[in-house]
C-alpha cells in the first residue's frame, strides 16, 4: 500500500541528456525538503521562480538551479509542489533526487504524480482510469515482466540472491516452529555464514551498479601522465580527430581538452590534460591543478607512460600512487620504438603494484594497439561483461532497495555473530531485508514460507 500524502520525488523530464532537467517534489513537506536542498535566503515564494544554488554538503555536485514553488491546491498534483530546474545532465538530476531522498522524500511510483492529481480533483475519471492501469503496471508482477525485457539478467541475479535469503529465513522459521521434529534445520554458525554470503553477493551487485550507471549515462575517461609522453596523440588516436595540439615541446597542453566519443557503444567523454611536472608557468600550473581535479571525478584514468622509459620518474610514481584506488589503465606509449614485453613491469620499483591486466601497450604514432586500448577501456568500464548482457543495476530505486536490504543484513549478521539476540529477533532484520527485495522480486507471504518448509521437510506427527 502506498500513502497518498507523503512527499514523493522524481525526475520530471524525459530520460537522457537535455539542456534543462526538472526534478519534482510533491507532498506536504515539499517546501521543507526543498529548503534542505537549496541554498536560499528565506522560504520560496508561491508561483515565483527563484535562482539559487544547491547546498554544499556530502553530495559532490554543486550547481546553479531555478526552483519554483506551486502552493496547494494550485499545482499539478494539488499538493505543495516544488520543481527544481537544473542542467540536464543525468548525474546532476540523480544527485538532486538523492538529496531529496536524504531529506525524507520517497521515490515516486510510475504515474504517482498523476494519480495524486486525480485524488485531489485535478484530473477527471477517464484520465484516472488510465493512470490506475499505469500504477498497476508498477506492482511487482507486471513490473517484473516489464523490467525483464530491459534488464532480465538483473532481476535474475537479485532473484537468485533473494532465493538464498528466502531459504535461509524459511529454515530459521522452521527451526522455531518445529523444534521437536527430529530435523536439524540450521545452526547459528551456518546462519552467520549464509548471511555474509548474501551480503557479499549484494556488494558485487552494487559495484556493478555503478558501472551500469556509467553505461547508461556515459563515463568520463581522463588521460594523465608526465609531459611529452604522448597523451594528446592518444587522445587524437582514440577520438579520431586532431582536437589536441601535438608537438615535441613539453607542456603543450595546458587546459582540459574534451571530446565525447563512442567506444564500443559507450558514451565516453574523453579528457586530455596537462602533463604533470613542476613548473613556474602560472598558466601551466593551473592546467596541472585542473588535470588533478579531472582525475578525481573520472570513471577511468588512462596513465600514459613512455614505454621506452617507464617508471623512472618521480612524477610517474606519484601518479600511480594517487590513482591506486581508482579504475585505471596504464598505457605504455611509443611502443614502436622500444617496448618491454610481458609482465616485466608488474612490480613497479617504488612498490606500487600495477596489475598486468591494467597494462596496455600502444603506439599512438603507428596506431598499433589502439584497438586493444579501446577494448580495454570498454572492459574496464563495463566490468568485463558484454555490454548488451550486463546484469548491472542502473535504476536508482533498485540500488536504494538493495542498499537498504544490505543494511538490515549487516545488522542481522552482527547479532548472530555476537550472540546478542536469539533467532526470532534476528529474523526481524532478515524480514526487513526481504521486504525491500519484495518490491523487486514480488511479495512472498508467510504462506510461501510455510509451503517452502513443507515441501522440503516431513513435518508433523
Amino acid at each position, binding site marked *: *500500500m*502506498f*500513502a*497518498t500524502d507523503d512527499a514523493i520525488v522524481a525526475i520530471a523530464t524525459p530520460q537522457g541528456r537535455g539542456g534543462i532537467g526538472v526534478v519534482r517534489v510533491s507532498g506536504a513537506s515539499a517546501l521543507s525538503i526543498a529548503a534542505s536542498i537549496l541554498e536560499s535566503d528565506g522560504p520560496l515564494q508561491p508561483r515565483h521562480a527563484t535562482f539559487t544554488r544547491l547546498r554544499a554538503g556530502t553530495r559532490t555536485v554543486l550547481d546553479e538551479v531555478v526552483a519554483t514553488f506551486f502552493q496547494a491546491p494550485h499545482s499539478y498534483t494539488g499538493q505543495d509542489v516544488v520543481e527544481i530546474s537544473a542542467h540536464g545532465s543525468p548525474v546532476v538530476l540523480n544527485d538532486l533526487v538523492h538529496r531529496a531522498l536524504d531529506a525524507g522524500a520517497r521515490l515516486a*511510483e510510475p504515474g504517482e504524480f498523476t*494519480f495524486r492529481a*486525480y*485524488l485531489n480533483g485535478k484530473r477527471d*475519471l477517464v484520465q*484516472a*482510469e488510465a*493512470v*490506475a*492501469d499505469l*500504477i*498497476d503496471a*508498477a*506492482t511487482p508482477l507486471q513490473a517484473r515482466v516489464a523490467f525483464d525485457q530491459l534488464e532480465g539478467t538483473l532481476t535474475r541475479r537479485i532473484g537468485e540472491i533473494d532465493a538464498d535469503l528466502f531459504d535461509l529465513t524459511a529454515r530459521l*522459521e522452521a527451526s*522455531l*516452529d*518445529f*523444534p*521437536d*521434529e*527430529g530435523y536439524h534445520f540450521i545452526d547459528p554458525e551456518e546462519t552467520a555464514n549464509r548471511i555474509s554470503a548474501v551480503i557479499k553477493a549484494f556488494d558485487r551487485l552494487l559495484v556493478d551498479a555503478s558501472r551500469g550507471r556509467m553505461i547508461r549515462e556515459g563515463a568520463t575517461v581522463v588521460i594523465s601522465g608526465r609531459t611529452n609522453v604522448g597523451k594528446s596523440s592518444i587522445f587524437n588516436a582514440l577520438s579520431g580527430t586532431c582536437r589536441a595540439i601535438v608537438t615535441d615541446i613539453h607542456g603543450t597542453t595546458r587546459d582540459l581538452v574534451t571530446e565525447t566519443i563512442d567506444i564500443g557503444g559507450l558514451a565516453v567523454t574523453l579528457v586530455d590534460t596537462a602533463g604533470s611536472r613542476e613548473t613556474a608557468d602560472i598558466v601551466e600550473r593551473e592546467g596541472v591543478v585542473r588535470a588533478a581535479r579531472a582525475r578525481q571525478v573520472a570513471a577511468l584514468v588512462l596513465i600514459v607512460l613512455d614505454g621506452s622509459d617507464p617508471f623512472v620518474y618521480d612524477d610517474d610514481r606519484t601518479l600511480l600512487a594517487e590513482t591506486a584506488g581508482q579504475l585505471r589503465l596504464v598505457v605504455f606509449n611509443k611502443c614502436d620504438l622500444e617496448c618491454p614485453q610481458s609482465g616485466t613491469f608488474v612490480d613497479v620499483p617504488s612498490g606500487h603494484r600495477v596489475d598486468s591486466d591494467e597494462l596496455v601497450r600502444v603506439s599512438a604514432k603507428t596506431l598499433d594497439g589502439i584497438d586493444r586500448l579501446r577494448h580495454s577501456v570498454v572492459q574496464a568500464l563495463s566490468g568485463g561483461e558484454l555490454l548488451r548482457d550486463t546484469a548491472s543495476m542502473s535504476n536508482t530505486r533498485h540500488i536504494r532497495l538493495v542498499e537498504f536490504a544490505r543494511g538490515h543484513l549487516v545488522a542481522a549478521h552482527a547479532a548472530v555473530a*555476537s*550472540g*546478542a*539476540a*536469539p*533467532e*526470532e*529477533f534476528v529474523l*526481524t532484520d532478515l*524480514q526487513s531485508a526481504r521486504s525491500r527485495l519484495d518490491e523487486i522480486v514480488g511479495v512472498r*507471504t*508467510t*504462506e510461501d*514460507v*510455510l509451503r517452502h518448509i*513443507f515441501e522440503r521437510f*516431513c*513435518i*508433523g*506427527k
Partner: protein
Amino acid sequence: MNFDVIVVGAGHAGVEAAYAAARLGCSVGLCTLSRGTVAHMPCNPAVGGTAKGHLVREIDALGGLMGRAIDATGLQFKLLNRSRGPAVWSPRAQADKQRYATWVTNALEREPNITWIFGRAGRVLASHGRVEGLAMEDGDSHACSALIVTTGTFLNGLIHVGLEQRPAGRHGEPPSRDLAESIRAFGFQGGRLKTGTPPRLDRRSIDFDARVGDESWTVEPGDPVPVPFSFATTVPLRNRMHCWLLYTNERVRDLVRSNIDRSPLYNGQIRGIGPRYCPSLEDKIMRFPERERHQVYLEPEGLDVNEIYVNGLSMSLPRDIQETLVRALPGLEDAHMLRPGYAVEYDFVQPTELRSSLETHRVEGLFFAGQINGTSGYEEAAAQGIVAGLNGAKRARRELPIIFRRDEAYIGVLVDDLVTRGCLEPYRMFTSRAEHRLLLRIDNADLRLTPLGRQAGLVDDEQWTRFEARRDRYDRNLAMLSKALIRSASGARIPAAQLLRQPGVRLDALAEDHRVDLAFDLCSRELDLSSVETVVKYEGYLKREVALVERTRKEGGRRIPHDFQYFGVPGLSHEVVDRLSHVRPETLGQAARIPGMTPAALAVLGAHVGRTPPAAMLP
C-alpha cells in the same frame, strides 16, 4: 426457552464461547448431545505446543477455561524452545483426557448463566437476515439473539478406515446432517477438509519396564520445574507420566508401500484436503522416500484409562494392516490395538464469510467458531470460541464488537488470517504467522490482554486483583533494574539494566550475583522474570517493532464501511472487486492482506472510502 446466546456444540470452541458469553452476564443455552460429550479431545492427548501454547496463555489472560483446565489435569509439562528466544517459548502439556473433560464440565456447571440443552441441533431459525433461534431435531425450539455454531467435524462427517466408510462426526458419534443442510441453505461458500487420527493401543499389552535401557526407545520426561499455562495457577505443577519416543523402520515403510492401494487417501476415496503440517503415515512415506525413519511418540491418554495414543502414526489403512504395522515397531510386537486410526472428511464454511467478530456477513446474529471455520487444533478452536462468545454477547446487548488486533494477540492473527485469506487446508497457528511475534510473548500475554478482557467484562474480580499485583511487581522490577547500581567487570558502577543488555547475561544469575531485589510469584517465577528481562535486554528490537506497528496501524487502520460498494470504483479490476465484495474487509489493512490485492488497487480504494477520524481506527 429464550436465551441471549445459544451455543451449538460443547467442544473446545463451544465451551469457551458459552463461558465467555455467560461472564458478560448473558443467559446462555449450551447445546450438546449429553453431559458426556463436553470438552472432548478426539485426537492427541495434549494441549499447547509452538504458537498453540501462546493461544492458551491468551485465552487464560482473557479469563477462559483452557489454561486452568490443563494445569489442573495435565500429566506432563514442557516449555518448548527453551534454548531459543523468549518470543518463541511455548508451553505444551500431556492431557488426561477424561479428567480434563470433567474439570471443564464442572466449571460450566458452576456458572449460573449457562443452561444445558441436551439433544441434537436441527435447524438455524432466521428471518429477514437475522437469527431468531435454534430448532432441535426432536421438534423443540429455542429463541436467541445470537447463535454460535461450533460443530467441529460433525457437518456431514464421513469416517474412513481402509475401504470402509461410515457417516460420523467423531469416533462412535453420528454426524449432523440436518444442521449441515440448514446452514448450506443460507448460501455460505465452503468446502471439504480431511483430518486423521492414529490407532490407540492397550497400555497393558506393552511392557514399558522392559524398554528401560532399550536403545530404540527414548524416555521423554517433562520439565524438572514445570511452567504453568494459567496465570491463576499458584500450586506447583507435577509431572505424573512419561512419554516414549521410537522410530518407524523398513518393515513399516514396506507395509505402507505394498498396501497403498488400500489407503482411502491414495485410492481416490478421500477428496477433502488434509493439513500439510500433520501428514498421515501414508503421506510421510510416499512423499518423503528419502527419509529413513519417522518419529513415533507413545502418549498415555490418562491416569485411569488404558489408551496409549500413537502420535505420528495417523493413518486410514485397513484395520488388519494397521495392526500388523504397529506390531512391526520395535518393542510393540505384542501390542494390542484398541481401535484403529481413521481419516475423517467434513464440511467447513469458508471463514471469509465471517467478520472479525466471527459473525457471518450473511446472517446477523449467526456466529461460527472452531473447526467449522477450517481450523484444526483444540487451541485454535478455543481461541475462536472466546471471540465468538464475547461478540455473541455484544450482539445480544446491541453493543459494538471487540476485535483483537494482529499486533496485540495471536488470537487477532488467527481471526484476521481466517476472515481475510480463507482456508485452503486446515489452518494451524505457527509463530511465523505473527508478523509482530516479538511483541506477542507468553510472558506478557496478561499484560497485553487482561486489561482488555477486564474492560470487555471477561475478567472477574479475582483474576483482576491477581493481575494488578502482578503488574505492580512487573513495574517495580523494571524500575529496580534501571535504578540499582551494580559493579561491572571493569569496576565501574552501572545500572543493572545496562549489564543485562550485554550478550550472555541472564537476569536470574545477575539478580543473584549482585543481590538485586526482585519480586516474583513463586509458581510462575520463570515467566515473571522473563517478562522483565526481555523488555530490558531486547529493548532496541522491541522499540523498532512498536514503531513498525504504529506505522502499519496508521496506514492500515482506516475503516471501510461494511456496505461499501466496490462495483463501479474506477481502476479496480473485476477480480479485485469480486474478492473485496466477498471478503468485505473492515479496514484498509485487512484489504491489503487479501491475496491478489495490488498496491494500486489499495490506493484507489483508500481514496474512495474517504477519511475517517483516528478514533474510528481498527486493526
